[in-house]
Structure formats: C-alpha cells, structure tokens
C-alpha cells in the first residue's frame, strides 16, 4: 500500500513547515521532501493543495465512559469522534465504572480499542488512588504493565499532600508521572462557576480562581522537591500560568495543557444558564482567558487537550446546580484552535506542536513525520468554513457550548498507520 500526498504544506511538528510531498508505504512514512516525490506503484495520489499535513494529533485528556457509562460514550464512538477531530491517539482518564484502578479495566479498554475500534490508538491513564478516593495508592506498577501511560485522579484530585508526595515518588519508580487536575476541593465546594462579577450577577455559587493556583503551586513544589516531572491538566487561570512559568524558570520539569474552551469562552457565557457552559475547571474571566492564550503562545502551556467529557441529555438537561460538568471537545478542538492561527496569534508550527506535544510528555511513539516513523497523519484544510453542528458529531455526546459557531478550518483526513480511517464528508 502506497499513498503519495503532494502539493501539501508539510508541518512536521518541530521546525519550519514547508511546501512538499510525503510518501507513505504500508504503515510507515517512507519519504518526506520539499519537492515532488517520484514513486512507482502508488495506490493513491492525493493532491493536497492548500492542505496542511501534520503528524497525527494526540489528545492527552479525554473521557470515554467505558466501562460503566456507555450511554454517554463508549470506546468505539469515542475513537470515531477522535478520528473525526484529527486525533490518531487518545489518552483517557480513569473515571469509569469500575474505576480504571486495576489491570483488568486497562486490558479491557485496550482490547476493545484494538478489536472494535477504528485504529486510533488508545492510551489509558490509570487512577492514582484506589477508586479515585484519594486514600490509598492504586497498583501503579501493575497499571503501567497493563499499558497506563500516567496516573491521575483527574476530577477527584488528591487533597492529602502526604499521600501525593509518596505517590509521585512511587510512580517514578515505574517511570510514569502523576497528572494533576489542580483544584482545591474546599474552595470549590458547592461552586457552579468562576467566582467574580458574573457569578455575582447571575447568582450562581462561585469557585474562586485561587483554588487552581494553590493546587498548581503545591504540585510544582512537590515536583521540585522530589526532582520529578509533573503534568498539569486544563490550566484555566492567569495565576496558574504565572506559577507554572515561575517553576519552569527554576528548572522544574512541569508541563501543562489547556483546552480550547478556556481560549475562547469566559464566565460571561454562563448567563444563558445553558448547562453546556458548566465545566470543571469553570470558564474564567476575560483576564484569565487572555493570560491562557499568552501562556500557550510563549510556551508556558505546552499542549492543547480537549477534556472531552460526553454526557447524556438526562445528565445535562437539569437545573444548573444538578447538571453534570463537562463538554465534548474532540470534534471541535482543531477548528476552534485554528482561529488563533488565522488571527496570527500563534504560528502554524506552534499549532501543530501543541497538538503533538503529548507524545513526548508521556513517552508515546508518534508526533513526527520523520522518514521511517509510524504513518499517523492528520490532514487539515485550513480555509474550509463550516458551522459546528452537534447533531453531526460521531461522539454520543451532544454537550457543547459551540453549537452554531462558525469556524474556519477542518480536519480533512485522518490516517493511522498508513490507513485512512476518516475522511471529512464535505
């Protein structure tokens, strides 16, 4: 099987993009060149004029709800949504039922992805503590053996600092790191949205932004003390960005992600009382939003993740306080983030970098177009304009605040190990 992609803008993830062509042979990238590649016996020639060719994107933070909440999403629908969003690899969070705190769940997930999935590679993140209860460590060594690429309790972050310290140490003996959802549960208790002028105006209980910063500071101090790397999830506040930047200058191996909704929306959006604007961390102030964009530009934030959190109508369409938190993101992240490329706030190279940095963070093969590497490729048509329609999602989740948004740029094709697994139905 040979696929020749020509007349493309090749954006290899590191270094400059250039006009050129790329040859895929079976599951590998055979050749990349700034000229037209001559090859015989090509099965398909793709004229990618105006298109961007990038290493397959990785989403390092998604919720697939399988096992346990398959009515919200399952591994098959989740992987389909990933492919439609240009992702060739996905890391899933452990808050399934049962919790992904044992090798049985990991093996089930990996097997289902392999046997029933579309080819997108699934990398579970194991629970850090048993049952995500924050009390005792999960069998981290065994989780690693089963294929976990990191450990995290995500939405139920460890509050006990002593446990966190020992856990980070213990995980390091198996070469995997703790992924921190930074939240002080005391400060956010009962909160429904970011605390500030808009929570005052809308009369919804507030979540003080300082809670995220407090937790980020603690996590970074732990990492510094132990000399270990740490990854911070979905950064949403200016203070958290400042703290991460500070620890980076001190040489701490801290990496961070944010999600498109923190780049595009603020707490003002909650005025609709649309439960699709309810997410954790909550949408923050305009000042925070600008700071997060800046942090993405200057490298304080390393990656974009989706925090894809599908929910069923019956969990969402409730009174605001009772509605589940989270929004889907896999199928909108690329288009929403491209806005910043069109506005020249970030370069095309940086855009590809933030969607592929996760491979290096978690030691996963991929994120390169180098000759001989795995042919996981995302093709993007940056100028195609369309309107986000939740009813077109391949995800089971319809919970997005971006329904009806006009966007420019779309995933045109997704290729995993040389095989096209998704083509956009224009």
């Amino acid at each position: 099987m040979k696929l020749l992609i020509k007349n493309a803008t090749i954006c290899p993830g590191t270094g400059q993009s250039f006009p050129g062509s790329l040859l895929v042979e079976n599951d590998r990238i055979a050749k990349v060149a700034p000229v037209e590649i001559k090859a015989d016996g090509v099965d398909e020639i793709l004229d990618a004029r105006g298109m961007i060719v990038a290493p397959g994107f990785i989403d390092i933070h998604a919720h697939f709800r399988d096992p346990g909440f398959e009515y919200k999403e399952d591994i098959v629908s989740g992987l389909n949504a990933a492919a439609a969003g240009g992702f060739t690899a996905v890391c899933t969070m452990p808050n399934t039922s049962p919790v992904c705190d044992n090798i049985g769940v990991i093996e089930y997930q990996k097997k289902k992805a392999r046997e029933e999935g579309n080819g997108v590679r699934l990398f579970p993140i194991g629970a850090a503590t048993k049952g995500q209860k924050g009390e005792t460590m999960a069998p981290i060594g065994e989780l690693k053996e089963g294929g976990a690429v990191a450990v995290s309790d995500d939405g139920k972050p460890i509050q006990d600092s002593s446990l966190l310290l020992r856990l980070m140490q213990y995980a390091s003996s198996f070469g995997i790191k703790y992924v921190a959802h930074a939240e002080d549960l005391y400060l956010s208790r009962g909160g429904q949205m970011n605390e500030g002028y808009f929570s005052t105006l809308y009369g919804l209980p507030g979540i003080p932004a300082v809670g995220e910063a407090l937790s980020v500071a603690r996590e970074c101090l732990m990492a510094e003390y132990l000399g270990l790397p740490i990854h911070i999830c979905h950064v949403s506040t200016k203070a958290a960005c400042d703290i991460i930047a500070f620890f980076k200058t001190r040489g701490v191996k801290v990496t961070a992600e944010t999600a498109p909704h923190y780049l595009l929306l603020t707490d003002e959006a909650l005025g609709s009382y649309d439960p699709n604007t309810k997410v954790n961390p909550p949408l923050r102030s305009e000042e925070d939003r600008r700071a997060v964009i800046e942090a993405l530009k200057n490298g304080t934030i390393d990656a974009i993740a989706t925090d894809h959190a599908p929910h069923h109508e019956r969990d969402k369409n409730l009174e605001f306080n009772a509605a589940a938190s989270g929004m889907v993101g896999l199928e909108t992240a690329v288009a929403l983030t491209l806005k910043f490329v069109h506005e020249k706030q970030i370069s095309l190279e940086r855009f590809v970098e933030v969607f592929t940095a996760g491979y290096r963070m978690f030691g996963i093969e991929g994120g390169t177009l180098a000759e001989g590497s795995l042919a996981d490729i995302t093709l993007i048509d940056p100028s195609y304009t369309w309107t986000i329609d939740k009813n077109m999602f391949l995800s089971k989740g319809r919970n997005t605040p971006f329904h009806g948004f006009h966007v420019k740029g779309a995933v045109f094709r997704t290729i995993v190990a040389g095989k096209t697994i998704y083509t956009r139905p224009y």
Partner: protein
Amino acid sequence: MKHLLGIESLNRDQIMQILETAVSFEEINQRQIKKVPTLKGISVINFFAEPSTRTRMSFEVAEKRLSADTYNIAVAGSAITKGETLADTALNLQAMAPDCLVIRHAVSGTPHMLAQIMNCSVINAGDGFHEHPTQALLDAYTIKKRKGRLDGLKVALIGDIAHSRVARSNIHLLTKTGSQVVLAGPATMIPRGVEKLGVTVTYDPKEAVKEADVVMMLRIQEERESGLMYPDRREYARFFCLDEKLLSLARPDAIVMHPGPANRGVEIEDDIMDGDRSVILEQVANGVAVRMAVLYLLLGGSNA
C-alpha cells in the same frame, strides 16, 4: 413583555409602567369586593419548588382577584429527585396548557431555562441567589408611595447580599431609577465585583445608614452559614442589627423595610420592626397590587 425573569433585563420605562399600573390595582384592593374579571379564563400555575409562604400566597391572591384560574404545585425539593429532567418537567407543565407559570426555584436560572422550553409566560418568583423581580417591584412601589420618587434617594441595603436574590433585584431596580444604593455587611456577605453594578460598598452599617432615606434589612440565611460566613447570630446582631441607635443616623423621615421573614433580634430589633418607621406590612399589602399589575401586563395586556 412576555416573561418577567428579572429586573436586570428591564428598562426604566418598563419598571415605571408596572408601578403605575399597580396604582389602579391597589385601589381595587381597597374595595369591598376585591375581584375583577380581567383575567377570566386565563390559567396560571404556581410552581413552587422551594418553601415559600408569603410570595406564594401573594401571587395566589393576586391571581384570584384578577379571576384567573390558579393551580398550585408545591414540590419538596426539585423535580430531579424524581429522576425527571427539567425538559420533562417543562413539557409536563406545558401539557396542562397554562397561560402563565409562576416559578420559585432554589437554583438560579431555572425560570430562564423553563422560559426557553415553554410557550407560556414565565414569572420568576425567586431563583436561587439570582433575582426576585416582583419583590423589588413591590419594594419600589412602597418606596415611591412613601417618598414620592425613586430617584435621588439613598438606600441602605444591609445584610447577606451574597446570597440574596432580593438584594440583586433591588440593586438593578434602584440603580436604573437613579437612586444611590449603599451595601453593608460583613465582607463575607458582599459578593465579588458587586461594585460594578453601580453600588457603593461598606462594611460599616453606620456609614450605610447615615442620611439614608430607606433602610432595607436582609434576612440572614440558613443556619448552615453560621460559622462559615459569620461566627454566630449573637456576634452578627451585635454589629449589624438595625436598632434605634443605628437608625438614628438615618434621615428623620427614613423608612425601614424587610422582605421577610425577619429574624427578630438578629438583623432587626423588635421595636424597629414594629415601630412607626417600619413599612414591612405595607410591603406585603403592596405586593398583591404589584403582582396583579405584572400578571395584567403579561397576560391581559392590550386586549384586556
């Protein structure tokens, strides 16, 4: 106007129109026979998903005096406890084909969500900490009746602003009509960014009450806040209770208001509550006229 969801979305003219309309309904309330056929054949559902005595009663009296057919649904807790989504609740209410839904709910925004799903008019009878528009309107009516105007007044609003829908609606209304609103309470009860609504904030009730034309006291919320928002009732009363000494700082013709139910001896002393400057019972009486005006404008309107 189809719905009354809050004061924030109203302009000054709309507020004044409601208050002027209420004048004629107050007159009806003083007649021997307090009933007019204005809303005959109109059905109103009073859906109270949070305990309420006076607001529910006030709406019901207003509806009956306008000859509307009223149906009361009181649910302990919200519908979710029965495993129903808000859309289900809305569609079930809709199936009864009401012309108007009066809703009280403990969660902010619920009336707004229902208004989007249902065809009928929706009146917010208090949602979470958000708004209580008819309360602010009846307060304004009471102030206007006593003071002859709603502009150029100094209004002190004292107590738990953070958890008060009455405070928010009053702030919107009084700033729109051109009065000066001064908030006072312990800092834990002053919500973040509230100055942006055009009010002045102080932690000293004396400063708020000084030269005030209106002193409005707010109810100290549930017991669970004690210890977290303030140490205890005793300490709260010591620094924030409206007593003779504090009230003496206000203008001699100042009026004292409270949306009720009041915690006597905590936010307001008995002698003030029952004293001649208190208009607390007038507020209740005016509430019926103001709610009649709202119902009339939303449901009777031009074709009445």
